[in-house]
């Protein structure tokens, strides 16, 4: 199952529309989406506007692959739960975000091999076809907390 999430802030119709088309071509793979404030009504995938945290987590845990915007909340959750993730950065030119920082986030995390990134809808389609043909491999595991170095630095600064 592929779980699509746009985060909860702004609509991200470009991703939802593209995933609705892709869902049609991905036979035997169920696609479920949390669409938040999106105006678009998907036809080929199950869509939920807002999901309570419990149901959101159930879908996230059940998914074989996550598709989302390049938001840190979703990326960190995917890393903690060891879910392969494909991110499509929100772009300012489509009024999807105030600036293009998600583009830089996607590039940096892709370089670290923490995420798969798609920078166009065509690339998203190709990546998803490749990833659903085989078991998408694990990307990177992280623990529950920040790096020891950052924790230590904060601890020392607090008592200094």
């Amino acid at each position, binding site marked *: 199952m592929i779980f699509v999430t746009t*985060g*909860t*802030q702004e609509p991200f119709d470009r991703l939802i529309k593209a995933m609705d088309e892709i869902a049609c071509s991905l036979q035997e793979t169920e696609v479920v989406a949390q669409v938040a404030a999106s105006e678009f009504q998907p036809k080929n995938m199950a869509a939920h506007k807002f999901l309570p*945290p419990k149901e959101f987590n159930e879908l996230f845990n059940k998914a074989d692959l996550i598709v989302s915007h*390049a*938001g*840190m*909340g*979703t*990326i*960190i*959750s995917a*890393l903690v739960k060891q879910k392969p993730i494909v991110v499509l950065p929100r772009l300012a030119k489509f009024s999807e975000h*105030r600036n293009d*920082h*998600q583009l*830089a*986030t996607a*590039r*940096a995390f892709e370089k670290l091999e923490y995420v798969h990134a798609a920078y166009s809808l065509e690339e998203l389609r190709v990546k998803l076809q490749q990833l659903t043909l085989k078991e998408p491999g694990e990307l990177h595991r*992280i*623990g*529950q*907390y*920040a*790096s*020891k*170095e*950052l*924790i*230590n*630095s*904060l*601890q020392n*600064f*607090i*008592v200094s």
Partner: protein
Amino acid sequence: MKVLAIASAGGHWIQLLRLMPAFEQHEIIFASTRQSFSETVSSYKFYAVPDANRWNKFKLIYMGAAISRLVLAVKPDIVVTTGAAPGLMGLLAGKLFGAKTIWVDSIANVEKLSLSGRLALLFADRTYTQWEGLATPKVHYHGNVLS
């Protein structure tokens, strides 16, 4: 020590929770923009604060007043935030009321500090980036919220 840990809903909040071991030996009070988050930190005191961004000046003033009241009531020794605007306001109020203030810029900001982070840098006692390339003598880098 009393630590007020504040962040907006979403990625900022998730990053704040990953810093928890740094504060555990102190009294922690959490604040975020969604009441339901109290469940994720159920053994701690939690306050919901209004959200705002720089595009809505009226909401920004309302949020600033609410957060200043919170800081005045809590009287923290430390205010720490991972962003965004409500965290900046918490830091500013903390600074005015004598707390030590810490800004941890979101790991989402790869190429430059966020606008809020650049503002925090003007007055915060400590500013962290999570990317080595953004470190300067005033912007500290000591790893990131991942591990």
